[in-house]
């Protein structure tokens, strides 16, 4: 999986923001990770600790906010909840679904000093 690259990207964003928003230590990082995104939260937690060693985010705690998947059913013309990309519409049982939420991979906010 590519969680290592993603954690490196998170750290880069934090380092850029540390210059812009003037902080030197990061205590907590909140990420928003959609349940349909190709990210494994456990792998993210594991890699984040390694990537942040000896940086301004060394020892920072990583909090992952999971957003649920939703899709637009072009048959029922409404939004429906989905757990997986290949789920069927719970109402009409077709697969005419367009994912509308759940593949987010965002860094939301930081607790800093």
């Amino acid at each position, binding site marked *: *999986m*590519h*969680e*290592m*690259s*993603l954690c*490196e*990207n*998170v*750290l*880069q*964003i*934090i*380092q850029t*923001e*540390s*210059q812009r*928003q*003037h*902080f*030197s*230590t990061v*205590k907590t990082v909140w*990420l928003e990770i959609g349940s349909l*995104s*190709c990210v494994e939260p456990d*792998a993210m937690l*594991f*890699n984040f600790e*390694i*990537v*942040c060693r*000896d*940086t*301004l985010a060394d020892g920072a705690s990583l909090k992952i906010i999971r957003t649920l998947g939703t899709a637009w059913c072009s048959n029922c013309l409404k939004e429906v909840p989905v757990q*997986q*990309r*290949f789920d*069927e519409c719970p109402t009409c049982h077709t*697969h*005419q*679904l367009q*994912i509308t939420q759940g593949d987010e*991979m*965002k*860094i*939301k*906010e*930081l*607790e*800093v*000093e």
Partner: protein
Amino acid sequence: MCTVCGCSESETQLSPDNSHSDSHTHDDSHHHYGHGASHSHAPGFTQSRMVQIEQDILGKNNEYARANRQLFSNKGILALNLVSSPGSGKTSLLTRTLQTLKNELPITVIEGDQQTNQDAERIRATGVSAIQINTGKGCHLNAQQVGHAIEHLAPADASMLFIENVGNLVCPAAFDLGEAHKVAILSITEGEDKPIKYPDMFYAADLLILNKVDLLPYLDFDIDQCINYARQVNPRIQIIQLSAKNGDGMNAWYQWLRLTHQTKLIGFQATSS
């Protein structure tokens, strides 16, 4: 290095097309990607406070991808990102395709692998220009690497660019390279349930190629079930069945390539005239 999957960008290398020249060397023949933490410390505050960020984790990659896409659009280039598991026959499909199409239009190729120049050499043997990106421990190509490769390759206006990604059905799904379409290649020796086992990739792809259909009589592969699974994940996906080995079905693929390339030229010709 990642102990989950071995991902790391620190060993990435890019080797330009210098195979047919022993008489000169390229000083810039390798690009090294990935830098460690900068260890930067800004003079800051001691009191804990909250800072809003609200940024896409892949924002940087997406910026590079946008720049690549803009360049492709300006030059009327059709860029395709070929994705699959290792051993699906991507390079064989590509070499056969190049032999057929290379006299019709200018084509260049970017080859992504963790190690070796072997695939780029197979491509160059067809007479087509290719550049190899070695990602080291990295499990996918990213848009910045592709941007550098394009600078070296200098693809012609109105040409076709194939980007053969690292063989991996997981990670390349998340990384936009600026391509017009992802083309997923699935060989029938792999099992018909790949589309639902690795749904992100089949969701991201616009075309699915089912390769090695010449082996159907010898396997238990349920091709209809595979197509059903692919359409469950992605109702819009187009599907072509072919054998890069004996040529069956290749005409449908060439037709798709020619038509897709034509659509890129419409806007380009309008702009350039």
